[in-house]
């Protein structure tokens, strides 16, 4: 098990209500999970809490038990044990720039170098992760001159270069064009071969086809948890506004639920 939440609530400093409410769930290695919900549902907060960035960086109060890769990320010893082991990608990649690197290559190498790896190991990891993220051609560019999409892929390369044991990705394709987003989504199951990958996103149209499991949050609480077709194809998902477009089309066409959640699923159901 990679992450376990037991009765976890979280409140940001100065907030009137909890951003997470009594959340109990676990993420397993080998599994790609989509965390979705309407805006403000708590998906990003859940990732930050699993990584220990909430409350350590954000401030606020957490209650309940969190176990991330065997330790509590809220404790000092837990954070030290987790250094370099969690691949966190923020929804705002420019806030994740080290500010210490003048080339994309050095930016990607920044994490591994800070973990004290030897030079050859860093070189190999940086080379490989830049290739996988499709940013090798940008190696000598100044990271501050990149477009949003290029920067997001560079940050992803930087995260992969540390070979983390857990991926927590917040809207990892927000900045990407559809083709690049498709490439990234196609990579998720490979990343999840021996670790958990958790993606917080509203891009249900495309992610419904590539994830193993969907956890839906509403007002900080888990309201659905299961296979994508079950969670996102339910009438309730259409009502909550979290269903994929294909499900909405089917709903408006007067088809009874459960609705197909992807074009491929609709084609299987209605072709011939």
């Amino acid at each position, binding site marked *: 098990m990679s992450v376990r939440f037991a009765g976890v609530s979280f409140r940001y400093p100065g907030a009137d209500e909890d951003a997470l409410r009594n959340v109990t769930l676990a993420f397993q290695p080998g599994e790609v999970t989509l965390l979705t919900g309407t*805006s403000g549902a708590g998906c990003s907060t859940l990732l930050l809490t699993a990584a220990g960035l909430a409350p350590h960086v954000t401030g606020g109060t957490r209650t309940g038990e969190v176990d991330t890769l065997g330790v509590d990320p809220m404790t000092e010893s837990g954070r030290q044990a987790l250094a370099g082991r969690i691949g966190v990608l923020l929804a705002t990649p420019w806030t994740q720039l080290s500010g210490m690197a003048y080339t994309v290559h050095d930016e990607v190498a920044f994490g591994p170098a800070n973990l004290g790896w030897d030079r050859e190991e860093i070189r190999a990891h940086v080379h490989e992760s830049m290739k996988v993220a499709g940013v090798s051609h940008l190696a000598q560019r100044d990271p501050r001159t990149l477009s949003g*999409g290029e920067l997001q892929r560079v940050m992803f390369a930087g995260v992969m270069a540390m070979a983390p044991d857990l991926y927590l990705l917040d809207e990892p394709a927000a900045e990407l064009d559809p083709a690049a987003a498709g490439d990234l989504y196609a990579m998720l199951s490979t990343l999840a071969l021996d670790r958990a990958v958790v993606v917080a996103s*509203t891009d249900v149209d495309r992610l419904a086809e590539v994830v193993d499991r969907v956890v839906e949050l509403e007002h900080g609480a888990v309201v659905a948890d299961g296979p994508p077709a079950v969670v996102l194809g339910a009438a309730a998902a259409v009502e909550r*506004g979290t269903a994929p*477009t294909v499900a909405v089309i089917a709903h408006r066409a007067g088809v009874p639920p459960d609705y197909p959640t992807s074009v491929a699923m*609709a084609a299987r159901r209605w072709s011939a």
Partner: protein
Amino acid sequence: MTVLAFEHVWFGYGLHPVLRDVSFSLAAGETAALVGRNGAGKTTITRLVMGLEHPDQGQVTLKGEATASRKPEEIARHAAYVFQHPDQQLFGRTVGTEVAFGSRQLGRPPEEVASLVRESLRALGLEHRSDTHPYDLPPAERKLVTLAAALAQDPDLLVVDEPTQGLDRVQRDRVIGVMQAVASRGVAVLAVTHDVVVVAEALDRAIAIADGAIAYDGPSATLLCDESLTESLGLEQPSTVRLAMALGMRQAPVRLQNAAVALARHLEAEG
């Protein structure tokens, strides 16, 4: 009436060339999507519109006047800009003051500002957020605040960079509704977006940029129905079109409501 025109515009950042001989114009009430791969030069085009950059060659005109000879604050009289990331432009202490700022700076009378602010907040479902600090809102709502502020400027041209990024379906529908509404009042809309749903629902024309040059300029529905063209531009076809194609339907409607009607008919015909 032409609101915006690019005439043989060339532009680069230092030695890094970005735009090559870009020409297009936008009329009042016209809605256009600016699409293309990451790094194609889409955001650069919006910066040239707003006078934040100037062409190396060629010219950009706004309501007939070259932007190069005008200050950004003069350009703001005609064009309102919504940055891709709300945190790049929010600074007011409350949503209300934030949304009023641009309109007030343009020297509009207070009662007109108040009415524009009210209307913009209502259009985006933010009326109950007027006294909230923008940074106490979730990022998606912050984005809506920046759009409300642009609307409150009552511009001739609305330039938006990824207006639906990070929004949920309900919020996205609001943004689509707002773009349709302002266009019907004669406002020209230029939207940089990767969101094909927004292109399909709200933007009649698509201008695609590839390697700094215009690769397509025409009806967005034609582009979205063309599988090889969308693929070559790094775009995807909307689920509406892909569903119709997968089911072998004769017509591929790009908009959701039309797709629902077409699906109902198709299933009925198939028994």
